[in-house]
């Protein structure tokens, strides 16, 4: 499908989506309540069939925490980027997409480990890499300070 048709499909499913053009893949910024619904639709519809999630990234914009999903269809080879964010920095919660793409399991645990974002309906929400007893807090946030372990340069 062409980019214009994909944009129309997304806007028809979620009218509040914001489409941003970039040089590479076009971005669709989705409110967090609608993400799971849109993702499920994009995966199951026969003419889009986005069955391969190839990158799940967490991002700390200073006022909000964002998660970026790069998805591709193995049948038609078109790729888009979905983004969703939450402004609550003390207790951020988003919906999990583990039931749609199984690879999101470990990647969402990684995002929780580094940024603190919890995901609803995740089968096993706990830290993946870091050891709770030695490192507290969420290291990839921009306001993380650790005077003991980090030698600044």
């Amino acid at each position, binding site marked *: 499908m062409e980019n214009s048709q994909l944009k129309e499909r997304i806007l028809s499913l979620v009218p509040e989506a914001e489409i941003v053009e970039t040089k590479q893949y076009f971005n669709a910024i989705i409110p967090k309540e609608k993400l799971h619904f849109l993702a499920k639709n994009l995966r199951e519809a026969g003419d889009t069939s986005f069955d391969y999630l190839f990158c799940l990234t967490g991002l700390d914009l200073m006022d909000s925490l964002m998660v970026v999903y790069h998805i591709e269809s193995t049948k038609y080879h078109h790729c888009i980027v979905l983004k969703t964010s939450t402004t609550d920095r003390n207790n951020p919660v988003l919906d999990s997409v583990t039931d749609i793409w199984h690879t999101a399991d470990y990647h969402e645990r990684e995002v929780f480990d580094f940024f603190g974002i919890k995901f609803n309906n995740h089968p096993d929400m706990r830290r993946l890499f870091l050891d709770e007893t030695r490192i507290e807090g969420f*290291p990839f946030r921009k306001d993380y300070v650790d005077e003991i372990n980090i030698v600044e340069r």
Partner: protein
Amino acid sequence: MKEEDFRDSETLDIFKKSGGNILLTTVDSLINWGRSNSIWPLTFATSCCGIEMMACGASRHDFSRFGIEVYRASPRQADVIVVAGTIVHKMAPVLKRLYDQMSEPKYVIAMGACAVSGGPFFYNSYSVIKGVDQIIPVDVYVPGCPPRPEALLYGVMQLQRKIKLESIREPRNPLKDCL
């Protein structure tokens, strides 16, 4: 160091702590000869230096000719632990437990820049331990990132030299030996 100094046994005598004793020097040199020529390491490799350690054991730079005949999987049966790779906060208690499980006399070789002092991960990393000597006492440091297999062999030869200085009159105390 120069080849002459390496082979010179008078220089070694300066480092000997216990003085000579006619009855025990032959026994000492026999035991030290046996110990230094059959050092069996533990299979322990965390990252890139582990591959250079494997390459050192392969057919081109064979370290089995130095006495490192087999790798032991269990720490109870090993003599030396070659810490090859970065140690992070989560791995540190595991390393300490492995070191404690080894039986005396035991030696440690810190291989690679990460094990010596934190290496390329010294600045701005929140989880790397800046040198494995913060956890266990180290006998020989082999710098490099990663060190060539020949450098590891040189480190093993230095360890053999260090073992030849020991004596059965004084049991080995790693905390005094290793600076």
